[in-house]
């Protein structure tokens, strides 16, 4: 592959509510066994990108633990590999990453010292499969300066947190609006860009000179009539998880057979860190319907239309409905949970009752756990 990869995984936003207290969005657990960043990392690995940098900033400890070894995504290589960039104080810079462009600029030596002619930039908060080689071929064929991967969202989707795009008939981007209140188009940017490495270095250096820090606002939107910026439309599954509702919906999508088949059974695979957990166990009284159960879990109660992540324990006579139970949760006997996301490592006392009325409730109980 003639590109290096950069994954922007530093972000956080208030739309994730309490879920972001613990971790960066890119470290959010997805579909029972994965974390959000696994999708971008696996796509890069499967596209034969050998050298990948991950920019992290906000509450990166979960993410750093997850990335502690690069072998899971096949990046444990002599050539290339996985590089994690957290902001660092240097003799001429003492700032955090002030924006996405600034995050890239502060690591510009990574770009300068590579020899690959192109760069693929992706974000760590999207669930999708993609062969970046296709985007790169398109980029070259269009003689583009920057290619932006985009997708048509279904009618009626609230687009006020996306960047919306309008393209002309040869797919050149004519309009790009960031977080519009009233969107003029339902085509959104997926936060995946292909750009020539030298072009990117030039753009970033100019931004830095002018004191501009945001890649979308200060590069894509500012340069859209000056540089050749093209859109590459995808039809496959793509979902951004950066709000509680979207996070919940994306996880629940995995209960659909076509989504499971696409991500779990079709080549190539999505990789993740292995946890060496035993098979899931169903004891007497277990009644599981239409649910995903990850390994290491022990079920004694009723589970319906739910996603149970790794190492959960569900006590006797419990009912879990339409909910997401994150990693390593202990749920005491006779508990009822409906329409909830239970935060990881939580301990729910016996006889608890949680029901999200009208919207998904995030359950965080910080009880002591007594393990035998």
């Amino acid at each position: 592959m003639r590109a290096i990869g950069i994954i922007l995984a530093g972000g956080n936003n208030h739309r994730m509510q309490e879920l972001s207290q613990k971790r960066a969005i890119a470290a959010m657990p997805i579909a029972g066994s994965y974390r959000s960043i696994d999708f971008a990392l696996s796509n890069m690995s499967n596209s034969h990108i050998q050298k990948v940098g991950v920019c992290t900033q906000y509450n990166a400890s979960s993410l750093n633990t997850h990335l502690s070894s690069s072998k899971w995504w096949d990046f444990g290589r002599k050539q290339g590999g996985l590089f994690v960039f957290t902001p660092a104080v240097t003799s001429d810079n003492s700032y955090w990453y002030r924006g996405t462009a600034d995050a890239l600029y502060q690591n510009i030596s990574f770009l300068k010292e590579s020899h690959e002619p192109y760069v693929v930039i992706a974000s760590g908060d999207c669930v999708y499969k993609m062969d970046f080689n296709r985007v790169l071929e398109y980029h070259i064929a269009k003689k583009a300066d920057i290619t932006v991967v985009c997708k048509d969202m279904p009618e009626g989707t609230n687009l006020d947190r996306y960047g919306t795009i309008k393209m002309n008939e040869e797919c050149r981007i004519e309009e790009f609006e960031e977080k519009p209140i009233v969107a003029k188009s339902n085509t959104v940017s997926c936060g995946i860009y292909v750009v020539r490495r030298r072009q990117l270095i030039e753009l970033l250096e100019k931004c830095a000179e002018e004191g501009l820090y945001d890649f979308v606002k200060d590069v894509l939107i500012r340069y859209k009539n000056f540089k050749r910026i093209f859109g590459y439309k995808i039809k496959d599954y793509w979902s951004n998880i950066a709000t509680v509702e979207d996070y919940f919906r994306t996880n629940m999508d995995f209960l659909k057979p076509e989504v499971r088949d696409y991500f779990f059974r079709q080549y190539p695979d999505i990789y993740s860190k292995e946890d060496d957990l035993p098979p899931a166990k169903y004891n007497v009284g277990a009644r599981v319907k239409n649910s995903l159960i990850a390994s290491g879990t022990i079920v004694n109660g009723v589970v319906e239309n739910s996603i149970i992540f790794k190492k959960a324990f569900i006590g006797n006579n419990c009912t879990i409905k339409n909910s997401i139970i994150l990693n390593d949760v202990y749920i005491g006997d006779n508990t009822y949970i409906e329409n909830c996301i239970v935060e990881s490592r939580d301990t729910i006392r016996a006889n608890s009752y949680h029901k999200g009325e009208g919207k998904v409730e995030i359950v965080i109980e910080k009880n002591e756990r007594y393990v035998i």
Partner: protein
Amino acid sequence: MIKKEMIAMLLAGGQGSRLGVLTKKVAKPAVAFGGKYRIIDFPLSNCINSAVDTVGVLTQYQPLRLNTHIGIGIPWDLDRNIGGVTVLPPYEKSTSSEWYTGTANAIYQNIDYMDSFNPEYVLILSGDHIYKMDYEVMLDYHKSKGAEVTLAAMPVPIEEAKRFGILITDENRQITEFEEKPENPRSNLASMGIYIFNWKTLKEALIANANQPALDFGKHVIPYCHSNGSPIFAYEYNGYWKDVGTLHSYWEANMELIDLVPEFNLYEEYWKIYTKNDRLPPQYIAESAEVEKSIIGEGSEIYGRVYNSVIGCGVTIGEGTVVRDSIIMNDTVIGKYGEIYKGIIAENVRIGDSVKLGVGEERENETDPHIYNNGLVTVGERSYVPANVSVGKNTVIFGETQEEDYPDHYLPSGRTLMKAGDEA
């Protein structure tokens, strides 16, 4: 100079013929166990959990699956700069070339490997037991007793003692006599096939007995050390230990994992069992499914009803199918509206719709009653069972069977159905 205090030699070359078709294509240590594991994962995990980071794995019979599984040892953290796991197949020498003719002969042929680590002690293990054991504690015992050889041993019911190698010890646990499968056992302490040797003692004994045909630890090396006056001690072990050498004991050991709090508990934080995992996705239990008293591996999709069973990774069980008291290994696909009772279904098997396994009367197997018994139905790997057939008890199926292999859609109890071709 490289120096390792103790290295392990893991004997994994045997066929394990009493597992029948399960070991037709793979060595016994590579047979799947407990949903996602293979038998060899247990001694390998014990090694790394006991801080033994140098393991030679001796392979001979059908080593492909085993080699692929072990690789460079990444799942067990045995990918090391110095030491780690090394697969040791038999090899040609300038003067002779022979297969491994016995357990100790295999070790003898790898003296150079062991010498290269300059060890004080060598731990001999076999790849066909399910247990958790801290070899470091056993080594401490070995040292504190001033032993040259220590044998791990466990008390067994006296009436079963005649199936084992029995150790007779003095009050100090020093071994005074051995009895191999005695008619009238004088002790109930059975050898577990786990030995710690002082490397000097072992090397000397191996070289002295080099010309013994089928050189064996139990028959030749340990008696030789004993007659030479080396102090030999028994290390008593009282935890869970299961020989899975026969189909029935293999089935039983799998079933024991399902108990509410199993004696052999895979869910303990401490002493994890590691394995090479090809699959990550969670398992899906459908609306039409029912699962109770079972364990299920990653990426399986269950649409049918599963009771009291051990299901591997990547298995599909179709709607309306009932699986009871069975073991189903990785990547097997079972059709709709079938019934499976006491089945052992190996990897990558395809079973058509409305197939009934394990029905009908009890009748002894016609070819190998000592292997296929206790009402089990055994299906070998990559087999195919066509739709709408019924299969009796104590049966075995191997290969791509077709409808005409089942007259009247029925394979009576006790029958052996091996499809020719594929050197079956």
